[in-house]
């Protein structure tokens, strides 16, 4: 009886108040050996594969990677010029911020967790500087964030988990919204978009950085389906994550440079999205008389 009561209390504490993070971290530390052993077969086969690879194939791979690296460096030059230009322009309007992020490559553990929760374990922990709430990317886009850390491993909650919500914006017009996980690995939903908001299939969603956890400007997902039913206040929008959530073997842990001036970024974006953001601005506009003119003029355009 007391065991049942205790489990119920634990459930409520963990679900409602998140008081058990320390307990969970301690337990995760204790169960680390089990994770390690379960991952061993995979590590062993990878090791075997690497050590028995022939010299020729290694040389071929090396050559290919060098080629690729050259291409990427050439691309990077272009981006560096663009970044410098962007910073200069931002300096002009007095809202420059630092873009540089520090990253660390971490390998995924092949351990299987609860199949109905979208999370993975990575083989880098507090010893490497990982911390709770740290953003995690793969080579393509945002993957999720670290939710618990042990010295040598950490658990990453993917953006598709139902308990995960991510502040995003549409790259095309800066429209801000929130992407919520659906529990399916290939689907996100944007539940807070009014029916007349300016969004189209194929739009790229990037992080807006407003939550303060994720650095702004990283790709997240592509809009795949929009259902605008006239009787519903919000349209139902589905998006597909750009990150290879179920295929990546290596992920990037990101340390963002602090003080990214979210406030300045918001000011920056507002003129861009007068057409798009309807919910708060318009209801506010109906009360005041002076400010609304440009807004009300602008908003019907994208809607029609």
């Amino acid at each position, binding site marked *: 009886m007391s*065991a049942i009561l205790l489990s119920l209390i634990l459930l409520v504490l963990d679900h409602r108040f998140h008081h058990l993070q320390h307990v969970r971290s301690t337990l995760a530390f204790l169960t680390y050996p089990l994770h390690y052993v379960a991952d061993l077969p*995979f590590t062993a086969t990878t090791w075997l594969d690497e050590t028995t690879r022939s010299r020729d194939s290694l040389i071929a791979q090396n050559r290919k990677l060098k080629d690729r690296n050259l291409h990427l460096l050439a691309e990077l030059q272009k981006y560096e010029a663009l970044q410098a230009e962007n910073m200069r322009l931002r300096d002009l309007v007095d809202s420059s911020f630092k873009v540089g992020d520090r990253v660390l490559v971490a390998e995924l553990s092949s351990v299987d967790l609860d199949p109905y*929760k979208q999370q993975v374990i990575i083989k880098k922990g507090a010893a490497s500087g990982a911390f709770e709430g740290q953003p995690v990317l793969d080579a393509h886009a945002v993957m999720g964030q670290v939710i618990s850390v042990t010295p040598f491993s950490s658990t990453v909650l993917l953006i598709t988990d139902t308990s995960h919500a991510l502040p995003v914006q549409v790259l095309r017009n800066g429209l801000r919204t929130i992407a919520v996980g659906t529990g399916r690995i290939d689907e996100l939903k944007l539940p807070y978009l009014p029916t007349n908001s300016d969004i189209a299939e194929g739009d790229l969603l990037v992080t807006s950085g407003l939550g303060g956890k994720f650095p702004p400007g990283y790709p997240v997902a592509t809009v795949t389906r929009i259902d605008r039913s006239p009787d519903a206040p919000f349209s139902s929008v589905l998006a597909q994550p750009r990150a290879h959530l179920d295929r990546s073997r290596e992920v990037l842990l990101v340390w963002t440079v602090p003080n990214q001036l979210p406030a300045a970024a918001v000011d920056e974006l507002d003129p861009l999205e007068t057409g798009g953001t309807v919910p708060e601005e318009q209801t506010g506009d109906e009360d005041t008389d002076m400010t609304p003119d440009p807004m009300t003029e602008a908003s019907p355009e994208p809607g029609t």
Partner: protein
Amino acid sequence: MSGSGQGRLVILATFCVAMLLTILPMPEWARPFRPQWVTLVLIYWTIALPHRVGVGSGFVAGIILDALTGTLLGQHALGLSIVAFIAIQLHQRIRVFPFWQQSLGILVLLLIEHILAFWLTGVTRGITPGMAYWAVPPIGALLWPWVFVTLRKIRRHFKVS
């Protein structure tokens, strides 16, 4: 309690193996069908040695399993405690059943744990798992005779009582 130290080690080892089987990487299509290994092992020990393995062990195993698989702390603990409780109540009856009848009883126990987990995921995360979810307890029940025989061999070999 003669030789209890060794016995405890053996029981712990079987639980560890069951937990390893729970998190061992499997192909994507097979993941939803993974049997409830820890529950099976727990049921065996509660039936075989009800004076040593009971609700408390179920609770501890459940908490560790929760930490291991990243579920809400207490989800498995609740299910396993209840299963251990019922198994202890019924242990004398289940012991004398033939295998197929035992499997039916085990199926009910596995279902109880599974339905509890189903209900908890629904309440806390709003997910309704697909049809594959309900294939798990029958798979566990089909595996029961092998689990039973294997664990009995281990128990007799190491003279755990």
